[in-house]
C-alpha cells in the first residue's frame, strides 16, 4: 500500500468521526455566551461613571472660579469697599471663614495682576492688613550661611558684622605701609579710612594699605604749601611813607617790631624774639 493510498483511505473515512454533540453542549455554549454578554455592560457603566466624575470635577472647578470672581455677597462687598477706601480691623476681617477665603483669593489675584497701574490699589490693599506694627524681616535661608564663603563672595562677607582687624604699620622715609590680614572689603575700607585719619598729618608721604585678597590702596598726602615771605605783610601805611615798593624786588631788609629789651647775645639765646627775622629769598636761591 502506497502512502497516498493510506492517506486517501483515512481522509475518506474521516467523516465517520462526525457526530452531533447534542443539546447539552449547546446549553453550555449558550450559558457562557449569556454570561459574557451580561458582563459586557460593566465597562460601559464604568465609562459612564468616569464621565460623570470628570464632569463633576469640572463643574466644581468652574463654580469655584465663578464664586471667586463674583462679589455679590454682602461680606465681600464690605471688604472690597474697605480695601478701596479704608483699612478694616483684624477682628472684623476674621469674623467668618468666607471673609478670610475672599481676602486670600483677592490677594492672589492682585499678585497676578500686579502692574504699574495697580500699584496704588495694591498699596491700599496692603493698608487693610491689621497688623500695622509688623516689620519686614528679610528671609535668609540658613543654608546660605553654610555655603562656601568663596562661592558666596562679597555678598555674604559684606553682611557679616565687622570684627577688629589686625594690621602692621611700617613707617619708612616718605611712605607708610599698613599691612593687614585677610579681611572683607568693608573691613579693608575701614582700615584704609582709619589709616588715612591716623596719618593725615604725614604730609608728603605715600600711604600704602595692603591686605590679602584686596586691591592695594595707595594715596599720597599732599605736602604743606611753602610759607610766604614776611615781606608780604607790609602795610599800606609803610608804603605811603616811602618805604617803598614791592617787597622782594628791592632786596631791602626790613625789621619788624623791636622790643623794649636790650639785645645782647646772651639775651637772644635765653629769650628769642617772638617774631622771627626772616630774610626774603634772594633771586639766586629762587633759581636753585
Amino acid at each position, binding site marked *: 500500500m502506497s502512502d497516498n493510498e493510506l492517506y486517501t483511505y483515512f481522509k475518506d473515512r474521516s467523516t465517520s468521526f462526525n*457526530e452531533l454533540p447534542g443539546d447539552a453542549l*449547546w446549553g453550555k455554549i449558550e450559558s457562557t*455566551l449569556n454570561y459574557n454578554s451580561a458582563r459586557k455592560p460593566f465597562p460601559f457603566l464604568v465609562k459612564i461613571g468616569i464621565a460623570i466624575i470628570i464632569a463633576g470635577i469640572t463643574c466644581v472647578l468652574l463654580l469655584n472660579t465663578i464664586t471667586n470672581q463674583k462679589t455679590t455677597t454682602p461680606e465681600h462687598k464690605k471688604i472690597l469697599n474697605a480695601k478701596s477706601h479704608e483699612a478694616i480691623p483684624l477682628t472684623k476681617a476674621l469674623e467668618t471663614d468666607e471673609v478670610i477665603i475672599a481676602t486670600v483669593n483677592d490677594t492672589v489675584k492682585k499678585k497676578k495682576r500686579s502692574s504699574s497701574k495697580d500699584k496704588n490699589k495694591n498699596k491700599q490693599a496692603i493698608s487693610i492688613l491689621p497688623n500695622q506694627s509688623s516689620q519686614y524681616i528679610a528671609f535668609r535661608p540658613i543654608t546660605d550661611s553654610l555655603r562656601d564663603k568663596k562661592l558666596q563672595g562679597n555678598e555674604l562677607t559684606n553682611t557679616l558684622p565687622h570684627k577688629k582687624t589686625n594690621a602692621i604699620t611700617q613707617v619708612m622715609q616718605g611712605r607708610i605701609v599698613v599691612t593687614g590680614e585677610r579681611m572683607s572689603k568693608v573691613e579693608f575700607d575701614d582700615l584704609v579710612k582709619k589709616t588715612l585719619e591716623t596719618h593725615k598729618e604725614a604730609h608728603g608721604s605715600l600711604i600704602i594699605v595692603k591686605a590679602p585678597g584686596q586691591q592695594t590702596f595707595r594715596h599720597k598726602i599732599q605736602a604743606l604749601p611753602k610759607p610766604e615771605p614776611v615781606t608780604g605783610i607790609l602795610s599800606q601805611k609803610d608804603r605811603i611813607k616811602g618805604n617803598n615798593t614791592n617787597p622782594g624786588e628791592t632786596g631791602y631788609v626790613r625789621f619788624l617790631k623791636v622790643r623794649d629789651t636790650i639785645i645782647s647775645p646772651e639775651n637772644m639765646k635765653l629769650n628769642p624774639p617772638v617774631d622771627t627775622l626772616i630774610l626774603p629769598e634772594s633771586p639766586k636761591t629762587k633759581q636753585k
Partner: protein
Amino acid sequence: MTEKELIAGCRHQERRTQHLTYEKYSPKVLGICKRYMKDRERSEEMAMNTFLSVFQKIDQYKDQGSFEGWILRIAVNCCLMELRKKTDFQMEISPDDIQLPVAATHDNLFEEDIDKMLRTLPEGARIVFNLYAIEGYKHAEIAEQLGISEGTSKSQLNYAKEKLKKTFFNTPNQKIVSHE
C-alpha cells in the same frame, strides 16, 4: 438559511442564528476534536471552545474563504493549543521502534473504525498524521503549529504511516485492499 444569513445573524449576536450555526457545523467540529483529543469529554470541551471563539470573533472573519473552513480551522487550532500544553512533540521516533500489538490483527478491527486505528499511534505521531493526511497541512505548517522542526514532523509522519501499514495493511487477504 444560507451561509451569508448565518454570518450576518452571528454578527448581530442573534441567539437563534447562532444555534442554527451550531446545529449545522457542530458534527464536523466534534469529529475533528475527536480525532485530536483522547476522550469524548475533552473533545466536547474543545468543540464548545470552538463555537465560543466563532461567535465572539465573528467580526474577524473576512468573507474571502468559506465559513465552514474558517470554523474547522478554529477547531483544529483549539485542539492544538490544548495539546501543546501537555504533549511533547519534540520526540523523534524511527520506524524501527514499531512494536506491533499482540492482538493487532485485522480480524479484531473493523475496517471502518479508523478511530481505533489512529488510537494505536502515539499522540505526537497521531496528531502529525491527522494534520498531514486528513487536514492536508504541509510539514512547514505542522512544524509552525506544533513548535517543532520540519524534520521532527517528517519522522513522526513516517513512523505513523509505517506502523499503520504494518499493523493493518500488511496481510495479502485484506478487505481494505480489495476496496481500493
